[in-house]
């Protein structure tokens, strides 16, 4: 059985073409969501992780969506493994996808983060069980 540890995750080259294809497939929805976000930060208090981390802005739902999916679209999928690994912490550690985030405009933030997870997972970037328990990937 393939043992995909974090060190192994780094070995495979990033398939930017595949990322681009994934991004293009959902462009209509995701780009509109990203584009219409007014960057007002009013979603902040609806996130329990934001509240639990002394209102640290990096736990804000909009920040998490912009700095993961937003970056992927901005770079048109041309990202390296280092950046994907950075995003791993944002979309898995800083968000539990509880779906409680509230946007006054009506942007569905969890779907953006879930999609960012899918893109990362397609490149074998996801937290391992032993990583999560040791928190060494944070």
């Amino acid at each position, binding site marked *: 059985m393939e043992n995909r540890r974090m060190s192994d995750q780094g070995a495979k080259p990033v398939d930017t073409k595949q990322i681009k294809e994934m991004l293009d497939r*959902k462009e*209509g*929805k995701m780009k*509109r969501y990203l*584009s*219409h*976000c*007014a*960057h*007002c*930060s*009013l979603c*902040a*208090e*609806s996130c329990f992780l934001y509240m639990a981390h002394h*209102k640290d*802005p*990096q736990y*804000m739902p*909009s*920040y998490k969506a*912009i700095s993961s999916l937003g970056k992927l679209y901005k770079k048109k999928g041309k990202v390296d493994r280092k950046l994907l690994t950075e995003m791993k912490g944002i979309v898995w550690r800083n968000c539990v996808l509880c*779906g409680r985030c*509230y*946007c*006054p*405009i*009506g*942007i*569905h933030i969890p*779907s953006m983060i879930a999609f960012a997870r899918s893109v990362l997972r397609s490149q074998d970037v996801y937290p391992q069980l032993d990583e999560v328990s040791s928190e060494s990937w944070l």
Partner: protein
Amino acid sequence: MYNFIQGPLVSIAFVIFILGLIFQFFQFFRLTKKKEWIYPPVDVKREKKTAGKWITFCLASLNGTLWKTDPLVTIVTSVFHVFLILVPVFLLGHNILLNQSWGFSLWSLPESMTDILTGVVLICVAFFLGRRLFLSRVRVITSLYDYVVLLIALAPFLTGYFAYHQWFHYDTVMTVHILAGEVMLITIPFTKLGHMLFFFLYRFFIGNEYSFARGERTW
């Protein structure tokens, strides 16, 4: 140049604004489809509410909204958005121009009132700018683009205020005012300002927990 800004560009701006919104509206319906399932289930009969019950229900609902977490921003943003539409549409000067050009006009608010309301809009913009500059949670997601969008929204009101009080060189201020309004109209359908239309589409048509109506569409 002044003639072009005051003449054809006004029509061009309105055409782009209206066609742009129509295009975005149809694009939204092309990209979304009716849900195969609806949550909550369709067969749940909604309780008939009297006017009193509705008011009590709405007031009680406010507890779970931004009104509770951020009352100041809720008030400022509500006031800003209402006046942003109200002031230019019901401004006496605009309605006179409308009457001269197309032979019809809407009601007009007293000039002294629109002057105050413009001042209120400017204060609201200053508040938003302050949040962007000094509040770390807003600053962290702010880019130059956000300032540009804020400037696009601010410019027609600031120049209109200057023009009404005849500050600076009147003709130049008026030209910039007209140009600022045209830029705003043109950019609305294609930029972040598109939330003017998409707010309603997202909150009323897309099915999710926070829909205002029973949103029945999905992406």
